[in-house]
């Protein structure tokens, strides 16, 4: 699916502060994946394991923005994707990870890594490769311009299919009202 093919749309996907549930819902379009493969070439995505996003037609981003690496990846997607789509509750409003937003980050880290009862030898993770967490978890549209939103936790496979089918057919994507769900 990764060979470039003229006339096919190039699509990238990623999960930031998400659980990959939206990607699972994407895979839930089942045998329509074969039809999609006729029209789409995958760029950076966990499905290809390509590490850098090249110029793309569509970027599907799952999850909110919770650390410095998320900001970096999201900006890479925005730079490269003609159409950027926030997929799922976390990308749209921060979702579950954002439930920490009313807590102090330092206190959170201390409790989890140092003072939590049952920790044999707590220590604060300080590997330089670990991305620094942000003070608050943000929805995508607070960091970059987002073109389309697919709500849901996860969005129904039908909603993802309907969106991609619209893009492939060159139509303005529109989520049918019966597929709008926030839960």
């Amino acid at each position, binding site marked *: 699916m990764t060979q470039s093919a003229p006339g096919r749309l190039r699509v990238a996907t990623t999960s930031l502060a998400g659980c990959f549930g939206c990607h699972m819902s994407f895979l839930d379009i089942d045998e329509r994946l074969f039809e999609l493969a006729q029209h789409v070439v995958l760029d950076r995505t966990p499905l290809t394991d390509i590490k850098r996003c090249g110029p793309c037609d569509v970027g599907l981003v799952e999850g909110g923005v919770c650390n410095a690496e998320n900001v970096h990846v999201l900006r890479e997607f925005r730079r490269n994707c003609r159409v950027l789509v926030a997929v799922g509750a976390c990308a749209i*409003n921060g*979702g579950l990870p954002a439930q920490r937003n*009313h807590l102090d980050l330092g206190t959170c880290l201390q409790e989890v890594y140092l003072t939590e009862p049952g920790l044999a030898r707590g220590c604060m993770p300080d590997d330089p490769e670990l991305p620094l967490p942000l003070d608050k978890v943000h929805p995508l549209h607070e960091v970059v311009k*987002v073109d389309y939103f*697919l709500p849901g936790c996860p969005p129904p496979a039908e909603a993802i299919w309907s969106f991609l089918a619209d893009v492939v057919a060159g139509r303005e994507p529109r989520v049918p009202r019966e597929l*709008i*769900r*926030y*839960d």
Partner: protein
Amino acid sequence: MSGRESFLLDGTPVPFAPGETVMQAALAAGHYIPHLCYHRDFKPHGSCKVCTVRAGGQTVASCTLPAQPGLEVESATPELEDNRRTLVQMLFVEGNHFCPSCEKSGNCLLQAVAYELGVLSADLDHLFPSRPIDASHPDLLLDFNRCILCELCVRASAEVDGKGVFALSGRGIGKHLIVNAESGRLVDTAIAATDKAVDVCPVGVILRKRVGFAVPIGRRRFDVAPVSAQAKGDAPRPPREKERR
């Protein structure tokens, strides 16, 4: 319908009884006007502004606008729908509305109205306020994160239950729901799980404990049919039916 006077809602004649508001008459005739703080059992309040329409050259809350013969009311215009969407989006970012973990999901009026208006994202910066919950009461949970300040619980507790358990305090963005007890906790009030104030909450603020998922997600009120298809359910009931309850 014959002999009754009527007004025009988006060009369609809507009959009304003397004393009815535009909202009441519209709902009774099966026409939906998006609303949050209006409830058939209470005196219209006109505070959420979601039901705002244009009539007689003015924008006005349809829940408090008396129906008049020949009045021309515009409701489903792109401009008014846009304003409604923005109002709903502002409610979403002012509180913490995390539908996937809310046991009211599918029965929530805020969510249903947002679906109806085609809201896909709040599109504004979220405020992420810090609002601790009150789980002090043995039968009830209070989650202030989801309050939309409709004052239905305030009205129900004062007018129907005769207990005055709830009130709003503060102004503007600082306005919030409070509990009328010296401790500020629900356990120190006379509220009971059978109170109208509990029943009437349109969102997931006042919740009965231990029944949250008795009806599974997917089979709830607004899962079954969109709020616009249930307009008649929100219409004022005939007085006889009201007395029976």
